[in-house]
């Protein structure tokens, strides 16, 4: 019996287990999935928790519930990957051998990477919304906040779901507007990027939107440290706040450092098209755990999982890895007031206007704020738990980015 081991039962690990359990000959291949956390999280839902729209019940399920039949689901933490001996040591002393390893360990926040962030008010007046606990704590704080300065902050790139800080900014504006308190609240958007987003066309639309919402943009801000009530940049600029909503440094799991498999942020160097790691032929990686220049997002994981399943089948047959990931990413950008944007792009083409996934009929509009996009965003919770995680195809949504329905300017794209 040959063995495939998947480390991580989040979005990526679960989708891989589903694809492989269907496509591999189960008499020849055993699939094991390992995770240190018995829970699986619908992370896009965290955005709605601080505003009382979702609670933790909407976003947490038992991971085992989503494992296909016949897949071994193991609870335990991987301590070290011993690549030359094809084995993984667990924290509790167990060892697992494999023929093929898939790394799907995601990324988590590290506030301790920024000097002073943990010491000077973490979860008192400094909150993240990248964990259930952080989002809930912020939800408890917001009702007491009657006025003052709110800073929405990104510590360092890359972060998962790079539009989430924009969304929380729009939602915060909306929240205080609804309560009639907006005039007492100043909102700053503080980012290390030169604009609101990394892709120019989107940065322009989002920059405009921030202006309309009277959210003040503080760009190129490389955060050196946090002092009580103050963010200080490497070039000595200061942003004062009463409430800091931050996205701390995102890092891959420390397992990579212990195994000598990660870069400076513990992300795994991986071929951006085939998803094979540079460490060894029989080790593959997908999702937030890799160093790929694509967005770290659930939609990306969904597209990558189809490509990787294909390549693993080729690898087993000793064939060339022909399936190629094109960097396809799409995401809704919730903008408050019951509306949202949608963007769809890949390695080569920046987000453009148009309709998605079908020409003319859409139903969603690209790079425009609509009510239907918002309904799309809200429906994602159901779609995630019941369709995407179960590997059921969605009509019109393909792993390769489609060009139909997009208005592609002659000079756009190739970055």
């Amino acid at each position, binding site marked *: 019996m040959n063995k495939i081991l998947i480390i991580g039962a989040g979005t990526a690990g679960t989708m891989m287990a589903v694809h492989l359990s269907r496509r591999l000959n189960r008499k020849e291949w055993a699939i094991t999935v390992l995770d240190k956390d018995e829970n699986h999280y619908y992370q896009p839902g965290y955005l709605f928790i601080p505003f009382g729209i979702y609670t933790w019940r909407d976003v947490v399920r038992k991971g085992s519930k989503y494992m296909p039949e016949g897949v071994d689901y193991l609870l335990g933490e991987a301590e070290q990957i011993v690549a030359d001996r094809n084995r993984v040591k667990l924290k509790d002393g167990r060892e697992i051998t494999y023929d093929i390893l898939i790394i799907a360990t995601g990324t988590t926040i590290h506030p301790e990477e920024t000097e002073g962030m943990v010491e000077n008010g973490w979860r008192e007046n400094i909150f993240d919304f990248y964990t259930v606990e952080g989002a809930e704590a912020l939800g408890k704080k917001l009702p007491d906040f009657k006025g003052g300065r709110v800073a929405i902050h990104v510590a*360092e790139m*890359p972060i998962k779901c*790079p539009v989430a800080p924009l969304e929380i900014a729009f939602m915060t504006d909306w929240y205080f507007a609804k309560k009639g308190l907006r005039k007492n609240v100043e909102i700053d958007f503080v980012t290390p*990027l030169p604009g609101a987003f990394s892709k120019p066309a989107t940065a322009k639309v989002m920059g405009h939107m921030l202006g309309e919402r009277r959210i003040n943009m503080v760009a*190129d801000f*490389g955060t050196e440290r946090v002092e009580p009530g103050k963010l200080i940049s*490497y*070039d000595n600029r200061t942003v004062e706040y009463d409430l800091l909503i931050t996205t701390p440094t995102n890092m891959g799991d420390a397992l990579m450092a212990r195994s000598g498999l990660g870069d400076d942020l513990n992300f795994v160097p991986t071929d951006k098209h085939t998803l094979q790691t540079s460490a060894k032929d029989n080790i593959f990686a997908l999702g937030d755990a890799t160093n790929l220049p694509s967005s770290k997002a659930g939609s990306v994981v969904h597209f990558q999982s189809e490509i990787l399943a294909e390549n693993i089948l080729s690898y087993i047959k000793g064939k060339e890895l022909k399936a190629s990931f094109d960097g396809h990413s799409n995401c809704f950008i919730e903008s408050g007031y019951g509306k949202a944007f949608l963007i769809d792009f890949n390695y080569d083409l920046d987000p453009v206007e148009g309709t998605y996934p079908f020409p003319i009929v859409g139903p969603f509009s690209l790079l425009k704020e609509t009510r239907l996009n918002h309904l799309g965003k809200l429906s994602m919770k159901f779609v995630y738990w019941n369709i995407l995680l179960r590997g059921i195809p969605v009509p019109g949504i393909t792993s390769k980015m489609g060009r139909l329905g997009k208005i592609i300017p002659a000079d756009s794209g190739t970055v």
Partner: protein
Amino acid sequence: MATKEYAGKTVNVTDDGYLTDPSQWTREVAQAIAAEEGITLTNTHWKVIDFLKKDFAATGALASMRRINKTGGIATKDLYEMFPDGPLKKAARIAGLPRPTSCV
């Protein structure tokens, strides 16, 4: 694609002024690009440039500021002082390396 003259040498550059052919880079070219950026290169600047070039040759990618700090041993604060307003963009340009790609 355009050409430019630095230190009496014609080099190929991108629209935003990054060398496209690493073999055209010399220490004199670097000095001339730095001068254009309003920077006079000192030993500490050279330490950064040498690290970036060596690391690029080894990894095929431009080091991040975190990597320059953690692996190259140069404090981020110092980088901002040496190459004001966008240290990585400027240091890469002077080192004759590609423009940093912003992450998505």
